Every structure is written in C-alpha cells, then in structure tokens.
C-alpha cells in the first residue's frame, strides 16, 4: 500500500482489535492501555508526523524476494522452536508455578488491594515501574530536544481572529467536544483513583487525560491551547511526577526500610501500602499525561512553524 494515511488508519484498527483480543485473554488492564494508546494516541502522532513528512511512499526498486526468504526462514525456525513450548491455557504451565501463586494468594494480606495487577505493578515490582516512568520521561525529553522550536507568542487579538474564522467550519465538532471534554477528564481521574479496585491506574489515566487535552488542541488550535496550558508548567509537571515517585522511595529509605517499601510510610503496614500505591500511581499519572502532551505539542508546534516559514 503506497498511501501512508491508509496504512496508519489500518494500524489504528489493528490496535483496537488487539485491545479486544486482550479482553478475551482476561487482561483487562492491558486492554485498557492498548485501546487508549494503540488506537488513540499512536495513530494521532503518526498522522501528525505524515503531515510533515509526506503522505505517499515511493515505489521501491529492489526486489522483495531476499527479504521474503529471510522472513520465511526466521519464521519457520521460530515455529520449530515453539514445538517444545507448553500448551496454551493449561494451569500447570511453568509460567504459573513460580511467583504468580504468591501474588494471587498473599497480595490481599500483604498489600490489601483487590486488583492484583495494581499491587504487583506498584508494590512488588515498584522499582521496575520506576524505571519505566524514567524511560517515558527521557523519551519526552528526547522529543523536546529534537523538535522544540523557539515559540513566538501570538497576541490575543490574533488568536481571537483565528478562532472566529474557524468557528463556522468546526461548529458541531467544537460544541460536542466542549461537552465531552469535562467527562473525559473526569473519567481519567476515576481511572486514576479507582485503579486499586478495578482495571485502571496511573498509566491509563495519564493517557486518557492527555487525550482530552489533545482533542481540545486539535479543535481549537495550538495558540488557544497554549494559552490554557503553559508549556513551561507542563514540562515542570513531567519532572514532578518522576520526583514524587522517587521521593516516596527515599522516604521509605529514611524510615529504615528498603527503597519503595511502603510499609514504612505508616504504622499499619497495609495502610502504608495503600498510601504508597496512591502516591506513586499519582506520580505515574502526572508524568505520563504531561509527557504525552509535550510530545503532541512539539509535533504540532513544529508543523505550525513549517507552515509559517512557507508563507
């Protein structure tokens, strides 16, 4: 397929399909994340990218036979490798025999959170998650370093005139979005704070929150969005999220326990776990939301800048 727009739309549909596959596999938290990331944000970012890099692919000259041969050989080797793998769905597969029984049987007493995924993510493997958050933060900084442009703020009158000119063309979309955005933000907060009991948590909530802001930016233009959300503050927030996460770890160190051992946060270990999970999920949510907004703002800002240069 030579039209990249169609390619990206298909990959968005593929993201949604894999999300429903994850539901069928009982991985509700993962499905939630994939639906908001794979079908939402990633499609959007790719669309913004092709507006800058061009929509169609050049016809390739070289023959795909060699590539096809490599792929078929690798694929058949991998399939040969699967012949010794344990069968699908059996309860006595080796994966289910270590660590997992401890999480399933003891996490209620040790952490006191019904959603096992949240208690493993935030408590048992908190250090891992800290690493992931730092990776997201670093990627955000990388996009900032690659794409940020010196921004010349437009004055209010200019923004208002742009808004007036756009008013007629997107009237229905704008009104519907204005009604929807508060509910999207509210839903993001629900996902954030209800993650202990049902599917949800900082990662999903951050992405949904960012999606609401991106929706606003798309319909009301970059300059209006910049007036609502200050670029400097959002960068500060991305750092604050990581810092919040890290400082919870440092506090438990200062109280004489291991890094990120939340039972040090309170006299009652289970209450300490609850507090720790709440705080670090908040840190994750803040960082993920701000990094996603930073990434989108920089892509869209770059595009506006290119258009201005051309005129």
């Amino acid at each position, binding site marked *: 397929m030579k039209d*990249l727009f169609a*390619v*990206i739309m298909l*990959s968005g549909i593929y*993201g949604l399909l*894999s999300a429903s*596959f994850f539901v069928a596999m*009982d*991985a509700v938290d*993962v499905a939630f*994340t994939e639906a908001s*990331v*794979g079908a939402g944000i990633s499609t959007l*970012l*790719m669309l913004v*990218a092709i507006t*800058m*890099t061009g929509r169609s*692919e*050049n016809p*390739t*000259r070289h023959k*795909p036979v060699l590539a096809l041969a490599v792929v078929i050989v*690798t*694929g058949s080797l*991998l399939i040969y490798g*699967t012949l010794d793998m344990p*069968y*699908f*769905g*059996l*309860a006595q597969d080796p*994966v*289910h025999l270590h*660590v*997992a029984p401890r*999480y*399933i049987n003891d996490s209620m007493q040790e952490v006191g959170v019904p*959603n*096992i*995924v949240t208690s*493993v*993510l935030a408590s048992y493997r908190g250090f891992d998650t800290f690493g*992931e958050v730092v*990776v*997201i933060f670093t*990627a*955000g900084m990388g996009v900032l370093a*690659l*794409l940020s442009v010196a921004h010349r703020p437009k004055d209010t009158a200019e923004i208002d005139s742009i808004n007036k000119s756009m008013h007629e063309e997107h009237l229905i979309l704008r009104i519907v979005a204005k009604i929807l955005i508060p509910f999207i933000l509210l839903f993001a907060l629900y996902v954030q704070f209800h993650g202990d*009991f049902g*599917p949800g948590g900082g*990662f999903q909530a*951050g*992405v949904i929150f960012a999606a609401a802001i991106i929706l606003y930016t798309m319909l009301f233009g970059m300059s209006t969005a910049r007036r609502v959300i200050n670029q400097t503050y959002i960068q500060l927030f991305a750092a604050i999220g990581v810092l919040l996460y890290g400082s919870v770890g440092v506090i438990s160190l200062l109280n004489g326990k291991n890094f990120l051992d939340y039972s040090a946060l309170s006299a009652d270990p289970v209450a300490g776990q609850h507090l720790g999970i709440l705080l670090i999920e908040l840190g994750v949510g803040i960082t*993920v939301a701000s990094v*996603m907004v930073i*990434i989108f703002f*920089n*892509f869209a800002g770059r595009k506006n800048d290119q258009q201005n240069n051309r005129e």
Partner: protein
Amino acid sequence: MLMGLYNYWVVVVLMMVGFYIVIAHGNLIKKIVGLSIFQTSVFIFYISMAKVDGGTAPILAEGIKQYSNPLPHVLILTAIVVGIATTALGLALAVRIKEAYGSIEEEEIQKKDNLDC
C-alpha cells in the same frame, strides 16, 4: 495435540509480518508501523502465556478460585506506554530527517550521503 500451540504460531506470523515491513520497505514511517506490529506480537505472546483455561481477570473477588497470571499483564501494561513514548521519539527523528534531507526514503537519503562524501 499440536493444536495447543496455535497461540505461538499466531505470534510468529504477526512478528514476521512486522519484520518483513521493517526490512523490505524504505519508507521510515512504514518501518515504524512495522516495528509497532512486531511489538504488538510480543505483547500478544506474553498475554497468551498468562491465560489460564477457566480463569478470570486477576481482580480478587469472592467465590473465584482460578485467576489468570497477573505478572505478564504488569510487564506488558508498562511496555505499551513505554512503546508509544519510543515510537514518538522515532517519529520525531523521521521528521528531523525529512527536514535535513528532504526525504524519508532510505535510498534517497543514502544517495545524498554518498554525494556529500
């Protein structure tokens, strides 16, 4: 009895589709799409390993004995969000390459590089 392995074969096929796109196409955006298909195949691999027949989602509730394995879910949940952050970084690089070379086709970029030498 070999049919019990079909989940791995689906993963291998998807992975090879992604792999083929990455090596056979010169367009950088298409390569990134291929990489994300490759990535999703690994996600599906992990999640299908976590599935237990007759199990439910790993949220503790009264009267449920059999749960899916929560550990792969945790690993993949964070991997998805990290994946989008790195994809964004890749797209940002593609945008910069377009600005510097005027193209995101691998062959044209290499041709320009050879001229410069």
